[in-house]
């Protein structure tokens, strides 16, 4: 637990979903970001449209940590249903703000906190006529109170309100009025600001606040994808929404209104998978965003694309399973599903982004790799990365980028060669040449998921079958040095032990590692970014006596993959598992590492 201080504390807002609180909370976070102070925002929301509890957590972190901390210093309790839970969660010395239109004496059961009441409902009922405004404006009223208590810059807040309602200018004054109600009430009744508050800094220059799904959708635009197919599923829907939005902005001819892209909402995920396979087979860069249940349904097609060697780009925005699970909670629970999706001997390429910036980059890499290796490529994001706004470096683009279309024969090239065989390893790099329909009579071949020999002909001959699947395995293996390399962060002193982690665990792991280091426990850290595992992964594993594998699932899926795919002996790996569905916080990792190190007598 850590004490709240200037520019270093956590505020949590407890609301009822469907009441318009999301935009108010986003506004608060954006205001702090614009004041130059780094923030980490996490939205914990229900699988429901209206009436269930939802929380928004903002960590203010001048040092720019990227994960949750695990503390709550200031709670804005706007949901009577969760009062008790919210009260219990507050750190000692914390502040609780609530709507005292209806007094709640039981808040006083905790003498170690400060309780502040503002009659938000009464203030809004007196000020606004429309029933809907009275509900919505309560949100803006608490934004005003929080602004006063945390010393937020009102000019920044007013500017944000103007931007937010730029298309509905009538609402601007109404919202500003509500903010003033809360602000003035706080100034009049409380000592403002609180001992922990926000002071302007210049630590967010060159940064943006963006969610991973938006970044990935934008990445697909920059990768030159022209076709996308999908079936709606939380939490992947906003990825296709973003792709559609940017295509609509950037790829519609102003004169003719004609589109340079096609997006199809399929009848299910099976169809979405088939559609992107068909489009990629026919030479259009294509992709599908989905989540675990979708991958389960797509499995037969994934095996087909693997065996028939068709590029396929899938975004799995992981959510809590099994089955329908907890659709709005985060996990990293599809690692093994995606690594070997489909029946028979299949293995795929996986990319693991850790933040929206990497979602953008890896969306582009996924398209290049899928075409280079003619195989399915999974980008394994999750709800935390995909749906929360993260502060990342502004996305950049290299104008000299050209898509890697892989070994694709043109009409001219086909003209020159004597005979084309689809699955022949002509260059000795395990990758055959492919052709597109319609280019040349010599390029025709019959694509099949049934047994085929290296020439592309049907076969039931064991030897001829083996020759092809052995090449497929070698091809897959050769991708190890082409998927994104792991990021290794050595400890300041030489360390005999290490941490391996992946994806959205990164911020919490780095912070826990740094804090342990300050206490004298030295651990090297490697974040895996691709599968198949590269030589660097093998080396890291070989170089350390004991390795903590931190991941967000019950069954230690990444650790299992390491055991299967590297030479690491089992006793070297120690799982640290978080799978409650909430984004990982550093205190969890810190305590688990500290305890594991104590038990194992690692100094």
């Amino acid at each position, binding site marked *: 637990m850590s004490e709240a201080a200037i520019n270093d504390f956590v505020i949590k807002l407890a609301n009822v979903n469907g009441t318009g609180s999301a935009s108010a909370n986003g506004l608060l976070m954006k205001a702090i970001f614009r004041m130059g102070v780094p923030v980490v925002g996490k939205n914990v929301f229900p699988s429901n449209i209206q009436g269930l509890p939802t929380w928004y957590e903002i960590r203010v972190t001048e040092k720019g940590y990227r994960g949750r901390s695990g503390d709550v210093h200031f709670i804005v309790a706007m949901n009577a249903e969760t009062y008790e839970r919210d009260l219990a969660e507050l750190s000692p010395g914390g502040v609780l703000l609530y709507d005292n239109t209806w007094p709640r004496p039981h808040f006083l059961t905790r003498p170690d906190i400060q309780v502040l009441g503002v009659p938000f409902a009464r203030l809004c009922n007196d000020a606004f006529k429309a029933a809907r405004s009275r509900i919505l404006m309560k949100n803006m009223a608490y934004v005003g109170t929080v602004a006063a208590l945390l010393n937020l810059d009102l000019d920044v807040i007013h500017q944000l309100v103007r931007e937010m309602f730029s298309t509905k200018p009538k609402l601007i004054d109404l919202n500003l009025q509500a903010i003033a109600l809360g602000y003035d009430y706080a100034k009049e009744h409380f000592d403002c600001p609180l001992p922990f508050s926000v002071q302007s800094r210049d630590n967010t220059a060159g940064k943006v606040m963006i969610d991973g799904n938006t970044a990935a959708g934008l990445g697909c635009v920059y990768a030159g994808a022209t076709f996308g197919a999908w079936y709606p599923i939380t939490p992947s829907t906003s990825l296709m929404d973003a792709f559609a939005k940017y295509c609509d902005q950037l790829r519609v001819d102003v004169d003719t209104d004609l589109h340079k892209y096609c997006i199809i909402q399929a009848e299910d995920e*099976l169809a979405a998978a088939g559609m992107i396979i068909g489009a990629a*087979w026919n030479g259009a860069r294509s992709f599908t965003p989905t989540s675990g249940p979708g991958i389960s349904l797509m499995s037969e097609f994934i095996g087909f694309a693997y065996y028939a060697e068709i590029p396929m780009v899938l975004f799995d925005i992981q959510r809590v399973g099994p089955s329908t699970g907890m659709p709005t909670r985060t996990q990293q629970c599809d690692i093994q599903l995606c690594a070997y999706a489909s029946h028979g001997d299949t293995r795929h390429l996986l990319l693991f982004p850790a933040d929206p910036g990497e979602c953008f980059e890896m969306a582009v890499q996924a398209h290049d790799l899928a075409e280079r290796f003619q195989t399915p490529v999974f980008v394994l994001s999750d709800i935390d990365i995909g749906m929360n706004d993260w502060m990342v470096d502004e*996305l950049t683009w290299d*104008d000299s980028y050209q898509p890697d279309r892989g070994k694709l024969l043109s009409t001219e090239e086909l003209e020159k060669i004597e005979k084309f065989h689809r699955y022949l390893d002509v260059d000795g790099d395990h990758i055959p040449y492919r052709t597109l329909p319609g280019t040349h009579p010599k390029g025709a071949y019959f694509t099949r998921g049934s047994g085929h020999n290296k020439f592309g002909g049907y076969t039931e*001959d064991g030897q*001829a079958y083996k020759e092809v699947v052995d090449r497929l395995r070698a091809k897959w293996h050769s991708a190890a040095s082409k998927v994104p390399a792991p990021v290794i962060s050595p400890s300041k002193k030489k360390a005999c032990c290490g941490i391996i982690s992946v994806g959205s665990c990164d911020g919490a792991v780095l912070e826990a590692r740094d804090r342990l280091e300050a206490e004298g426990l030295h651990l090297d850290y490697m974040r895996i970014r691709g599968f198949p595992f590269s030589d660097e992964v093998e080396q890291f594993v070989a170089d350390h006596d004991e390795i903590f594998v931190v991941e967000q699932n019950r069954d230690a899926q990444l650790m299992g993959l390491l055991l299967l795919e590297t030479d690491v002996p089992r006793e070297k790996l120690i799982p640290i598992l978080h799978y409650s569905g909430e984004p990982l916080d550093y205190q969890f990792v810190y305590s688990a590492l500290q305890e594991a190190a104590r038990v194992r007598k690692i100094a």
Partner: protein
Amino acid sequence: MTSFTKPHIRRKNEPVNKLGLVRADYDGAMSTLCAGCGHDSVTASMARAFFELSIEPHRAVKVSGIGCSSKTTAYFLREAHGNNTVHGRMPSVATGAVAANSALTYIGVSGDGDSLSIGLGQFVHAMRRNVNMLYVLENNGVYGLTKGQFSASADLGSLAKRGAPNEMPPIDPVSLALSVGATFVARGFSGDREQLVPLIKAGLKHKGFGLIDVISPCVSFNDHKGSTKSYAHTYQYYHKAVHADYVAPSKDIKVCYDEGEIMPVEMHDGGVIRLRKLEKGFDPRDRAAAMSALANAQKNDEILTGLLHIDETHPDMHALNKMEDRPLNEIPYAELNPGAAKLHDLQKGFR
């Protein structure tokens, strides 16, 4: 076992099409189906239709699911790409392929098992989207490849080879297609190439989804007495409602039609389909009429065949999605890449 290529020998004075190709240029690998299987006749009709339309073989695309019927895409048009996908899922692969390049001619081949059970959802949705392709459903009332189980098109009371009757009502692909708004709906019979070849030609030229349900008997598992999908049964109850001929765009296309006898339908490519009425009062341009004719035929145990419905006015998937004519796979990357400066602009809202 590997696939064989048919010997490719040209006879003297063999007829050639506009491209100078002979009919054998539209062949594929040697069929591995049972001798007498209806599907082989359908393959021959498809090859002939492509030949007569003078479509360059490599500008055609063949897609199929899984089953004896779906195998047949290997047995014609050896110079065309084929995609033998997974069971019941050909429509989705076809949808993606058509989306990527609308400039080619697409033919899908499937079976009654492939289309009406495992693949029913995709089949229906491809029709709803009006994907520009011809879908040939080779209907034998059984799963041939898995050795003779009833399929969903088996008629009530039709007997299995070992004598057990089918007790569930059939799914009729033609009625289904009409009900979901398919824009070209026909039925043929593998044993009647005179009728089938023109239907395939018309279907290939139709802009939008064309369905031809082809009764195509399975000699190994469903050609016995008591089966309603046998050759004998089909010949006996076969009823031609209308005959369709496709006439390519040409100068003399504007001949006068004797209304009532011949019904012309103008096609997107400038050609015309001439419908010859064989049944009084039946106009395939009218969907409701087609549905009632079908219901009547069913009542009388007739197998109604011919081009049963056509609608050239409904927009296809490309039009519905406002796509430009140029295939997606031909748009140069330079036109798709917004560039670094634009990326900076786009992020203004994220600051």
